[in-house]
């Protein structure tokens, strides 16, 4: 009982005593008094100091394996730490300069807008009219996780809720005028491989490729038509989901710039996604006869080509300490 009480008392605040031992040159005593109390140190700042004191003590005693252990623990405890040799001891500074730390597993959130540059593959206009699809703005919001390898490559998996639009408007000389608007909402899951390179201590560039699958959730169609020699405008709407290809595979490329703040990254990026499937299910193109008769519009073969502008925030959950000589 009394021994555990004594141990408790010694370990209640071990750092000042350990520091005094080190200051007076009793390095081994510093280690012997601090090591048993490590598990009792709950405060993060104090724990970092303890790891650092042990690392520098072992280094002073030339016990490099133990030094390596506590040096790594020190860097994992405080990933933002970086050593500048001007301040640390000469040999310890040199030792630390061989180490680096990078995020291993991170999570993030992104939002932004997209522009849909619709690609007309084939027109099915019953009137043989030229189809003019204009770029249209949508939005997206998503979450993602990244896993970084030892090399500056990382995998990124994400889930994004997005909305894109398809717009078409044209008129003919005889007065036929039509506005077609389709709003698509989908959930996109993606997996990508990226690399990055530093341009300064806080800034880095990133780039990569990804593949994804979009699961269409909504396809709302709205058509307004003014027929030739008729002043009246007819409105027609359709819930187009049942006539669409609901699974849309896509592939993309992304480039961006990251700004590092402590354990976080704020990123601005531009990305392009190319969709491989037409929006319309060709087997169901002519199923809604009412829609075709009322609007004189038959769904064309369209593929989406999206340009994304994203702002993302990434937070590192775990880190990896490495030695530069290995890399």
């Amino acid at each position, binding site marked *: 009982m009394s021994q555990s009480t004594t141990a408790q008392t010694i370990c209640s605040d071990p750092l000042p005593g350990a*520091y005094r031992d080190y200051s007076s040159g009793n390095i081994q005593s510093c280690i012997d008094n601090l090591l048993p109390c490590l598990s009792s140190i709950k405060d993060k700042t104090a724990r970092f100091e303890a790891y650092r004191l042990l690392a520098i003590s072992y280094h002073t005693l030339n016990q490099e394996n133990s030094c390596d252990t506590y040096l790594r623990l020190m860097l994992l405890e*405080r990933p933002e*730490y970086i050593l500048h040799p001007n301040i640390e*001891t000469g040999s310890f500074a040199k030792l630390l300069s061989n180490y680096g730390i990078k995020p291993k597993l991170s999570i993030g959130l992104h939002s932004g807008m997209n522009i849909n540059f619709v690609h007309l593959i084939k027109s099915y206009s019953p009137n043989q009219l030229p189809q003019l699809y204009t770029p249209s703005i949508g939005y997206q919001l998503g979450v993602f996780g990244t896993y970084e390898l030892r090399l500056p490559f990382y995998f990124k998996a994400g889930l994004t809720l997005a909305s894109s639009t398809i717009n078409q408007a044209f008129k003919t000389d005889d007065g036929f005028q039509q506005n077609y608007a389709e709003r698509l909402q989908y959930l996109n899951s993606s997996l990508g491989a990226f690399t990055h*390179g530093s341009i300064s201590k806080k800034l880095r560039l990133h780039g990569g490729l990804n593949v994804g699958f979009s699961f269409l959730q909504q396809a709302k169609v*709205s058509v307004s038509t003014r027929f030739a020699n008729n002043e009246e405008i007819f409105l027609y*709407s359709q819930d187009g989901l049942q006539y669409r290809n609901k699974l849309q595979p896509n592939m993309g490329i992304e480039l961006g710039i990251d700004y590092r703040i402590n354990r976080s990254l704020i990123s601005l990026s531009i990305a392009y996604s190319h969709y491989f499937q037409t929006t319309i299910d060709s087997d169901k193109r002519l199923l809604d006869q009412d829609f075709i008769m009322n609007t004189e519009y038959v769904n064309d073969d369209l593929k989406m080509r999206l340009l994304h502008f994203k702002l993302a925030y990434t937070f590192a959950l775990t880190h990896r300490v490495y030695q530069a000589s290995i890399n």
Partner: protein
Amino acid sequence: MIQWKFTLFKLAHPLGGLLLCIILPLSTFAQIGDPSFIHAQKEYELGNFQASIDTLLRRLEQGDDNLKWNTQRLLCLNYLASNQKENARKAAKSMLTIAPTYRSSALRDPAEFRKLLESFLILPKWKLGISIAPGSNLTLPRINKIYSNVELTKKYTGLAAYQFGISSSYQMHSSLALQFGVLASANRYKIDYSISGWDLHMNESMTYLNIPLSIEFSPSLKGPFLPYVQAGAFIGYYLYGESSFYAKFKEDGTEYQLANIQSKDRRMVFNYGIQAAFGTKYRKRNGEFFVQLTYFRSMNDLVNSSARYKYSELQYDYFYIDDNFQLDNLALTFGYSHFLSYKIESK
């Protein structure tokens, strides 16, 4: 091989200061890299404060940020020891400007130095954050003039929708900040009306991209929870919108509808107005969480009057003509802001 590097002291984690507070007193055994710094440190320990100060003053702008703030720290200690209080204050402020999240340590820092650091206010200068109103953005329609081809009463009801976006702020003063951002704001409302045996409904959803600009006032209080108020203006750009119309003849139950018709040409492209908000922040070391209630008051009619009578189908089948209305919003948002940089002020 491109190496990932972290900046410790520029990002100013207080631990950096604590670590260096360990190192400085250990200099009797340790070799410190920068010869001038070593020399200045030894002079300080020997009590030759002026010699230490002279050495440090010759190399103030040399080295990286880490060395610079440690230089300022040692300079401050020298000034305190030699009773040069004004110079000590300047050195402390310079140190905090480079390392704003430095936390003093009772183990390592003299009491006078700690007291001097506590006399400064460290405020975030630039912040960047995100905010979300997940279904807590309530639309409040205001009708200015009713248009109808028959006599009827329309009942407008505001509905809840989402709002999300990014925000940034610049701290102009300890209590005043300039706030701006980009928000996607969804407005939803419905109209119920009836006429001659017909039950009619219309609902509309419009999304605007709003750019708010406001001044924030936050009284200087202690404690992690900080209340604040904001006042400003916003301008919104119409992204997209849809209207749906429903009609039911009560006598025989005949129903028809026109769903999800794009309403872009019937609406004004720009929406502008004023806004006011109050909220509270929970400040951590490098960022803050906030919850805020904002009232957006639109100052212009959202109806494009030139398209009011464009669609005869709406007038004759649904007895609908756009009224002149404005849409206000009451949004409860949650968010997080990260501190990008800091400013130092005296308390």
